[in-house]
């Protein structure tokens, strides 16, 4: 009886182990020669939590959006995903604004914020489809991540997380394995040159533990088992306004200009445990270069390589003036005047 039970159990166990993912460590990809430098910059900024009391996550992602735009990445190359509308929330005492500081100096939800995925469109499926490029054919261009081989991608996630997962919309979650698989598919399709993965949630380090694709530098606001804390509350609005890690990261980015030579190594040291309370985790083993030699603007700004044009080879022209054919159609006269049945001029006495 016992023997049969153990046989059955071991049979079932065998089925289980055969189905587990085989994490192929594709470190042979390191040997593939990668071109120096990048040609353009993209940013994917995601806020995954809804409800009024998660105001700080929206403020986080909008503040990073502003910094990234200020440093030069155009809106056409930023994908902004915000899961809930705080500015027009009925509980917002300052409607049409989102602040990231209790002194309410900057409205981060200004006139020029372009949200690409809003509200219930922020789902795990849409996020994975966006990263892997498998969107349905009619998707507008602003909702597609059109990166190529030479693109440096900044991925910023904020919300509520746990050990190995990130919660989306309070109803679903993305696991760290799925995130790693999505990034691997991006690598296979040559959709990024280098990726900087920033995550500001509880137990953030668990999300990047399973990465196995090369050229990814990852930083998380807390290690496994630690919670990331928020910075301060705004009594006028009534909620926590911003998270600690993002607050200090923004402080750092405020001092960065498009021409600055500041390195990523300094950025990775931002927010020590004395101010952040949680320990900032960094994963740099998959990153080919030394963060000491990487400029901040490689990920946060947009600096393009240029070549001067030495000589101009003369090209004969065909015509000086092109004939612009403007189709002129005379519309047929569809209307004619019909006199009224009753002539009121004669009737009115």
């Amino acid at each position, binding site marked *: 009886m016992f023997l049969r039970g153990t046989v059955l159990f071991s049979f079932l166990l065998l089925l289980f182990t055969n189905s587990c993912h085989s994490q192929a460590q594709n470190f042979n990809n390191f040997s593939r020669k990668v071109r120096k430098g990048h040609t353009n910059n993209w940013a994917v900024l995601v806020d995954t939590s809804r409800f009024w009391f998660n105001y700080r996550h929206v403020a986080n992602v909008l503040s990073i959006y502003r910094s990234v735009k200020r440093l030069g990445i155009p809106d056409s190359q930023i994908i902004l995903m915000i899961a809930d509308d705080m500015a027009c929330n009925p509980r917002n005492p300052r409607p049409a604004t989102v602040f990231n500081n209790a002194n309410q100096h900057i409205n981060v939800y200004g006139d020029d914020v372009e949200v690409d995925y809003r509200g219930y469109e922020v789902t795990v499926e849409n996020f994975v489809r966006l990263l892997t490029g498998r969107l349905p054919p009619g998707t507008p*261009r*602003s909702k597609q991540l059109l990166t190529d081989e030479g693109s440096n991608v900044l991925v910023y996630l904020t919300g509520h997380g746990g050990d190995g997962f990130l919660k989306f919309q309070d109803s679903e979650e993305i696991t760290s394995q799925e995130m790693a698989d999505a990034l691997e598919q991006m690598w296979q399709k040559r959709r990024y040159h280098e990726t900087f993965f920033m995550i500001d949630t509880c137990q953030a380090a668990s999300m990047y533990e399973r990465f196995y694709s090369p050229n990814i530098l990852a930083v998380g606001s807390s290690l496994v088992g630690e919670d990331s804390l928020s910075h301060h509350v705004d009594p006028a609005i009534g909620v926590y306004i911003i998270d600690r890690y993002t607050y200090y990261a923004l402080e750092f980015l405020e001092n960065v200009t498009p021409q600055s030579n500041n390195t990523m190594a300094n950025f990775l040291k931002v927010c020590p445990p004395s101010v952040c309370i949680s320990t900032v985790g960094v994963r740099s083993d998959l990153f080919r270069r030394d963060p000491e030699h990487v400029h901040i603007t490689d990920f946060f700004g947009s600096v393009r390589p240029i070549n001067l044009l030495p*000589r101009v080879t003369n090209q004969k022209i065909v015509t000086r003036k092109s004939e612009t054919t403007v189709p002129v159609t005379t519309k047929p006269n569809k209307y004619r005047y019909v006199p009224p049945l009753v002539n009121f001029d004669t009737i009115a006495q």
Partner: protein
Amino acid sequence: MCATDQSGNRKSESYINNEDEKEADYRIYSVLSYFFVLVIIGIPVWWYTTRVYRADLPIEEMYKLQSNRRINKDFGILLSLEYDILISLVHPDPAGLDIDIKGEDIDVNLQPFLKLLSPIANFVVKSQWLYLTELGYQRKNDDHYVLRERQLPHVISPLETKLWSHLSPRPTLNLVLYFPHCSKPLYIHNSKNERVESNAFLSPRWGGIYILNPDKNSCENKLFQPDLERVVSTFVTQLQSLFKMNGISKEDIRALKISKAEEIVASTRRTLNSLARLLSEINSIVISDEVGEKISIAVENVNQAENFLKSGDVDNGLKHAKISYYYSEEAFSDPSLLALLYFPQDQKYAVYIPLFLPIMLPVFMSLKLVKRWYASRKLKKQKEE
């Protein structure tokens, strides 16, 4: 029902024994039938219906397609079968100066060059005017303004926010023509602080900018007629540089066709190879029949393209390379190729085990009964013999 009579007892015992035997037989048959239905039929049917559907793929062929081409150090132009060329005419001072040039004129004169390139890609030319937009980072130098070489990388990004070059499904090549203010002529200086004669520069993969200063006479007359030949020549040179062409002679075009065909074949092979690897690694991706068909077409055409290129037939090789590239891209970015997010393999077992295990346990336990019954029947047969 027990009979109390002694003989009756024995009789009923034997009756019961006979009945018992028959019932025991029926019991054993029912256990065996349960076993047959659940294990022999049920498990294979469950396995078949909950498997991830995968169409037949030439996986081995796809794995064989290893790319062995050396990669060029610098980035060339983005690989695509179609391109948009966006001509932007940037005029910061429309009130102070009229400029007599039309996008269509430039387009008509670019067509001869684009026709030469038509075997490798299709081009759609668009043009737009941007008013009241300036280029930043200018430094004053006596009576004219200067853009130094090291500031040029920072010029493109602020300009790009206004260009709106992302509204089409094709990659865009930007050709910008900038007319500085009459009172502020702008020149580009290289790193040695010498004036660059062409007054133009380009960024690989993005496009080029040409700064055309209005001359003094035009400024006085408030009407500027740019030298169309100069503009077209600069743009054509920029396009040549972007496509990494040395010239426009027949040999150059042929070299371009060969290099493009090789690039397309290499990219297709890479795509198919990585698709094969992905589909083997992540087991929970569904492969529909359409995707399987597209992959087979791509594999077939890439082999044909290879053969044509080896034999020197560039045109056919390019044609088949383009077909294979198109189908491989379609297959790779098919929206149905999404790993089953909420139905991974181990969770499938976690769902079905609590369902099947309670049923299976009694069936497997009663196999012992079957063995005992079979042994007793054999013994009885031996006894009867």
